[in-house]
């Protein structure tokens, strides 16, 4: 007997099976194990808060083999940690581009030897940037899947068995959110290279301000808020580039900056040590000033 319900059911089970081959069990805490996603053959991306120890970490792959692992890097801001396997036996996961509100998703976990576990839901919201306890994340996904115990660090998968994001309950209040795959993979790349996520340093103190209608006209776009500089530190990248108190930052690298969260988000990633255009309003007129953004110590 075959109908669309059966076909949909088979597709979801196949998706769970496919992502399941890249979904591993992470043994790095005293309570029940958590979950991780294979980022590379020897690299496992998981939630930082489930990696409670640095030594004696093991990862159990989908075929049941147990491989010792070490911590390759951690980022508290996004609650992500990267583990390096002693042997490159993992099958890297395939990622999906964008999450759409309403799309069917599966939250997956491997908190025990019994096999892959799944929970169904839809993407409820895509939001961000948002402040976290130790930083900020640019974008997050919220779903109505059930975060079963040990699901932290595991994948949110689409119906084609691709990873949409990494689930974590590490941001407090017990609420689970999902870090979108593109963001999580970017962090993983930095963790693999540097062991930590480098955050950009401008050397300014700022405050949110409204942008007048006239200034918005001069900007040639609608942008209601920006960040006015109330301090520029000496020997900072901002000072070297000539940013001044009273300048209103409205964009970095072509991306509008409305708030501190956005400034924070724009200063992570690939901008460090690069000459980056910072758009400011000075005397009501837009100017682009190139700043060689530094690394925050």
């Amino acid at each position, binding site marked *: *007997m075959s*109908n*669309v*319900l*059966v076909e*949909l*059911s*088979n597709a*979801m*089970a*196949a*998706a*769970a*099976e496919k992502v*399941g081959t890249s979904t591993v069990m992470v043994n790095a805490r005293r309570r029940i194990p958590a979950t991780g996603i294979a980022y590379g053959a020897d690299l496992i991306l998981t939630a930082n808060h489930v990696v409670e120890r640095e030594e004696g970490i093991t990862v159990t792959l989908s075929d049941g083999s147990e491989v010792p692992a070490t911590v390759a890097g951690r980022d508290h801001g996004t609650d992500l940690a990267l583990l390096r396997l002693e042997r490159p036996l993992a099958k890297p996961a395939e990622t999906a581009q964008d999450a759409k509100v309403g799309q069917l998703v*599966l939250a*997956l976990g491997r908190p*025990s030897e*019994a*096999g*892959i*576990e*799944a*929970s*169904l839901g839809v993407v409820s919201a895509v939001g961000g940037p948002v402040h976290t306890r130790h930083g900020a994340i640019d974008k997050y996904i919220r779903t109505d*899947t*059930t975060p*079963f115990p040990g699901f932290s660090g595991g994948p949110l998968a689409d119906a084609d068995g691709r990873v949409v994001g990494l689930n974590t309950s590490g941001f407090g209040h017990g609420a689970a959110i999902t870090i979108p795959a593109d963001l999580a993979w970017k962090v993983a790349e930095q963790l693999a290279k540097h062991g930590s996520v480098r955050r950009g340093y401008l050397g300014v103190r700022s405050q949110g301000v409204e942008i007048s209608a006239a200034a918005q006209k001069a900007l040639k776009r609608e942008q209601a808020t920006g960040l006015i500089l109330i301090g520029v530190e000496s020997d900072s990248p901002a000072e070297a580039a000539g940013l001044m108190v009273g300048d209103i930052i409205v964009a970095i690298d072509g991306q509008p900056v409305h708030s501190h969260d956005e400034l924070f988000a724009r200063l992570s990633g690939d901008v460090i040590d690069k000459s980056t255009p910072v758009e400011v309003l000075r005397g009501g007129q837009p100017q682009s000033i190139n700043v060689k953004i530094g690394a925050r110590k």
Partner: protein
Amino acid sequence: MNFSSLLNTALDDLLAQVRPVLAIVHNGRRGAGAGVLVGDGLVLTSNHVVARGRSFKVTLNDDASYEARVLSHDPETDLALLSIPANGGTSAVFSERDPRPGELVFAFGHPWGERAVLTGGVLSAVTTARTPRGEIPILRTDARLAPGNSGGPLLNAAGEVIGLNAMIFGGDQGIAIPASVIRKFLGMARSRVPANAVPEGVI
């Protein structure tokens, strides 16, 4: 037809297929559980639905009620088999396939006393649970279950029974006894052979 109406048709068919095999099991006390007709006038339900009951009554989909007697029960797998003097021919279809995590499932029962309610989700895990005498295979689902779902069927997308809903853990984890365990229980109960799995209560 578009996908949505095809999906609705499939759900209608599923309901039409399983409605006749769903029963209500009254135990002479407050509350009631669900049950599944398995042929020969036999009704499968959860052991805890009948465990402390005094007199048993089974109501079928057509509203007919019958006195029932407990034929066999097993606390370890939380299964019980009742006998009613009716509906010899009607039986649920049990799945022969291995359950797959991620597949769509539907729980059918009477949560909080509301009759014949269908809740949906996926099969969350194929795992085991520890019992005083060892381990038994169980299924876990994220389909919403409530008191009154006990003894009701967990169905796959084809409307076949893959398990019997047994209990709720921690508010959000439904547990079902898989078809493989049910088959063994029914085999033993039907043959009325007292075996280890049915130590007492076999009449």
